[in-house]
C-alpha cells in the first residue's frame, strides 16, 4: 500500500437511515460519556403540508448527515489553537493532544462542523481520532465498520473521490473552501430540494 496522503471519510446520505450505530460505536470505542459526541447524526428536515379536500399533500423532505471530524486539508481548528495541541499528521489526520489542551475552546469557534467537543467535567476539548490506532493497524474506524446500511467508508481522499464521485458539501454544511474537508458525500435525493426551502436541522437536542 502506498502511503496515504490524506485520510478521508465517505458518507452515503442516500443510504443513511439515521440509526446512529456509528455514533454509539464511536462512544464505545473511545469511552465517551453521554453528551460528548465525536460522531454526530444530524437530521435535516422540512417541507409543508397542504390540505387538499379531506386529504393531505406534502412536500416533506428529510435526510441525515453523519459527521465526525472531517480531518480537513486546511484545519482552522489547528490554526486557532494557541498551544498547538491540534496538529496534522503527514497522512492528513487532524489529532488533538489533550495534554497540551488548555480548554480555551477557540477550536470550537473555528471549526464550522462542530467537530471539537468540550468536556465540562475535564475542562478539555476532545475530538475524533479517526480511530488512529485501528487505522494504523490496517483496520477501519469504528464508525465505518459499524454502519448497518453500509453508508460509511474511509480511505485516501483522492481515492474516495475517484471511487464515489459525489460532493464535499450538501445542505446545510458550510462551503468546502473554508476548511477543505476530507469528506466525500453521495447526496440523498432530497438534498437538492433542501437548499432553498424552509429546512433546518431538526434534532439539535441530540447532537
Amino acid at each position, binding site marked *: 500500500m502506498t502511503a496515504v496522503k490524506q485520510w478521508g471519510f465517505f458518507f452515503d446520505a442516500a443510504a443513511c437511515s*439515521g440509526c446512529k450505530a456509528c*455514533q454509539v460505536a464511536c462512544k*464505545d470505542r473511545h469511552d465517551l*460519556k453521554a453528551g460528548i459526541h465525536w460522531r454526530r447524526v444530524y437530521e435535516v*428536515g422540512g417541507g409543508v403540508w397542504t390540505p387538499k379536500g379531506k386529504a*393531505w399533500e406534502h412536500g*416533506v423532505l428529510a435526510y*441525515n448527515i453523519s459527521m465526525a471530524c472531517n480531518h480537513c486539508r486546511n484545519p482552522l481548528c489547528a490554526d486557532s489553537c494557541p498551544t498547538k495541541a491540534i496538529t496534522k499528521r503527514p497522512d492528513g489526520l487532524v489529532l488533538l493532544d489533550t495534554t497540551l489542551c488548555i480548554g480555551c475552546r477557540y477550536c470550537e469557534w473555528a471549526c464550522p462542523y462542530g467537530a471539537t467537543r468540550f468536556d465540562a467535567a475535564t475542562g478539555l476539548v476532545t475530538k475524533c481520532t479517526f480511530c488512529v490506532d485501528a487505522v494504523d493497524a490496517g483496520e477501519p474506524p469504528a464508525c465505518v465498520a459499524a454502519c*448497518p446500511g453500509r453508508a460509511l467508508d474511509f480511505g485516501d481522499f483522492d481515492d474516495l473521490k475517484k471511487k464515489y464521485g459525489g460532493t464535499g458539501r450538501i445542505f446545510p454544511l458550510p462551503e468546502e473552501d473554508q476548511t477543505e474537508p476530507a469528506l466525500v458525500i453521495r447526496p440523498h435525493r432530497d438534498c437538492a430540494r433542501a437548499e432553498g426551502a424552509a429546512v433546518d436541522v431538526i434534532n439539535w437536542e441530540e447532537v
Partner: protein
Amino acid sequence: MKRHIDFAPMSRRSFLRWSALVGSSAVAVKGASASKRLFVPASAEIPVGGSSTERMIRVGCPSHNCGGRCLLRVTVKDGVIVRIDGDDRPYDGVDDPQLRPCIRGRAYRRRQYHPDRLKYPLRRIGKRGEGKFERVSWDETLDLMASELRRIRDAYGNEALYVPYGTGSYNQTNGRQTAQRLLNLFGGCLGFYNSYSWACISAATPYVYGTSVTGNQRQDWLNSRYILMWGWNPAEMRDGTNTEYILRKAREKGARTVCIDPRMTLSAVSLADEWIPIRPGTDAAMMSAMAHVMIEENLVDAAFIKTHCVGFDAETLPEGAEGAESYKDYILGTRDGVPKTPDWAEPLTGIPRATIARIAREYATIKPGVLYQGYGMQRRAYGEQVVRAGCVLAAITGNVGISGGWASGIALQAPDGGPFWLVFPTGRNPVRAMIPSYLWTEAVLRGKGMGPEDGLRGAERLETDIKLIYAVASNAIVNQHGNVNRTAEILKDESRVEFLAVQDNFLTPTARFADLVLPVCTQFETWGLEDGWKYGDEVILMPRIVDPPFETKSDYAICAGIAERLGFGEAYTEGRTEKDWIRWSLDYYRKTRFPGLPSLEEFEEKNLGVYSVPVTKPAVAFEAFRKDPVKHPLPTPSGKIEIFSKRLHDMNQPDEIPAVPKYIQEWESPFGPEAEKYPLSAVGHHYLSRVHSTMENLDWLEEAFPQRLFINPLDAAPRKISNGDPVRVYNDRGAVVLPCRITPRIMPGVVAIPQGAWWTPGPDGVDRRGSVNVLSSERWTPLAFGNAQHTIMVQVEKAEKT
C-alpha cells in the same frame, strides 16, 4: 455564499436534560441501597488495548426479541467487558452479509454495568405496587417460591398458575421457557397462545393461505421491480439483521420502493423512493380502493385468480357459500351500494385519490412486486382485515409463488418456516387450557367460566381464576399490556393474584408490583444460543464471557433451584448445566436444519461466534402450488388461496369477521363521536433506544433517541406548543406528560409516542416518562383475540413545566 448552518456546538447546544430523566430509581430497597455499585464509568480511565489479560470473544448480541440477531466482538479484560465491536468476518456479500449490530448492541455495556441492575433477591414489605422491598437470601427466596407454588396449586389447581408472555430475555436457557419447563413438571399451568407482536397476522394469514410460511427468502427481493413497504420499518424495528442492506441491494438493481406509513420513518428516508402518509387504521380502505382500480382498469391477473383463488367473484365462491357477497361484490359495492373507489378512500386515508390510483397501477403493473406488511397496522382494532386485504392484493395481481413476488401475510421464511428461536425443551403441559396471551387480565378477573367465546382453547371452561403469576423476563404484566392504570388496579388487589414473582435484570414497572423479585444475570453472564429471527440461516453462540455479579443467577439456575425444592430437581436439569443444554441445542440444530454446524468445542477453539449458510438460491414460497395447484394444493379447505373464507363465513359475525377482507371503522377513530374529545390518533412505534421495554434508561441510547411525543407543526400551532415543551397526552384511560418534538415527519392528526418507556406515575397518577400503554386499551380484536394497542385516540395540550 450558499446558506448554511453553524454547527459549532457553543452557539447551538442547550444543556441536555436527559440525565434528569434517566436518574436512579426512586425505589427504596432496604438493605440493598448501601451496596457498592457495579458501574464502569464511560471514561478514558477504562483501560483499552495492549494487556495480555485482554481477550476478544465473538458472541451473539443478547437476545431481547428485537428483529435482529447480530454478532458482537466483545473485549473482556480482567473480568470486565471493556469494548464491543461488530461482526468482522471479511466476507460481506448479499448472500451472507455481516451481522452488524444496531445501537442497542453497541451500547450494551451501559446495560451490563448499569447501577440500577438488580443485585439481590427482594421481598415486598409495603403495599403491592408501592415499590418497597427488603433484601432476602436465596434460600428464603427459593423456599417461598416452592411453598407458594404448592399452596396455590393445592387450593385452586394447576390452572391457577401462570407463566405469562414475555420476551425480555429470549434464547435457549434464558427467558420464560425455563419456568415453563418447571411448571410443566409441576403438573402444568394455564397456557397461552399468540403474542403481543403479531397476534392478528399470525391468525389471519392461514385463513388465506393455510400456512404461515408465505415469505420468500430475502435475497429474492433482488429479483423484484417494485416493493411496497406497507407500515414496514425495518430500519427501526430491525425486521431481521440486514433487511435494510438487502433492500438497498434490491434498489440498486432497480426496484422502486414506496413506503406507506403515518410516520416518515427512518426506513422511509433511507430505503424508499417515495413516502405516502396514511391515517392509522385505514390501510384496508386504501387496499380496497387499490383493488377497485385494478378491477375497473382490468389490471388483475384473471388467469391466476381463476386457477388459484376462491371467492374473488360470484363464480368462484366455495361450495356451501353460493350467493354470498364475493370480494368483487364488496369492492364494487354491489350489495352495500358503496363502491370502494379512491374517492371513497380519500377522506378515510387522507391520501389523495390520484395517489391511491397511481399506487394501484404501479403495484399491478410493475412486476414482479412485493407488498410487505409491517406488524404495527395489525396491532389494531380490526387488525385481521388489513392482513387479509394485503394478501388478496398479492393474489389478484398474481405475485404469489414467483421469484421477485411476495405473497404477503406473516411471511415466515420458505422453505421450512425459517429459524426455530427456541429449542430448549419445555416438555408437555399437562394443563391443556390456553388463553389468548392478551386476555390474561380477563383470566385474573373472571377466569372461572371463561370459554371459547373468550378465545379459550384446549378446554370447555376454565375452572379457576389466575392466582399466581411467575413472570420471567416479562414486563408485559404492567408496562407492555394495554391500559396500565387498569392493570395496576387489578394487581393491587391482593385477593385476586395472590402471589406475583418477577424474575428480571432490573426493577421494571412490573417488578415494582412483585411480591418477590428474583435477580437474573445478563445473557453475557451465562450460556446461550440463538438463530435468525424471522429470517437468516445462522446459529450464533452466546458463551458465558463474564461472571454473574452480586447474587444474580441465570433463569435456568433459579428454576433448577425451585425444582429441587419441589422434589424434581433431577428431572428438571437431567444433570445438565446451562452449557450442556447449549451443546444439546447445537446438536439439535445440527440434526434438523444445519448438518454442517460445528461442535461446541470447535466454536470455542476457533472463536467462531456464528455459523451461517449463504443464501445463493433464495427459496420462493408457494412455488410448487403456483406451477400446479391441483398436484400441490394449499392446506386450506379449498386447496386454493381463500380470498373468501368459508370458515370465517360460517362464524356468522359478518360485521366484525367478514368472509372477505373489509375496511371496518375502528372502535376508537377520528370518524367516531370520541374524536370530539380526543381528536388525535396516537401510535406507539418501535424505537431504536429500546427493544420494547428492555434497555430503558441507558444514557447513550436516551441521548440518541430521547423519549418524545412526535407531533406535526399543524397540530402543535393551535395548541400553542413549541418544540421541546412538555405536553400532556391524555384520554379516558390516563395521562402522560413528556417533552414534544415538533416534526413534519408525521402526518397531521397523528401523534407518536415510542412504545416501551417505563411507566413512572407521579403522586397524581400521571405518568412522567411517556409509557404509551397508559393510553392504550385492553380491548382485543374479534378473530385473533389479539392486542389492539395502536388503536388510540388522544388529546394533547401544553403541560406546565414540572
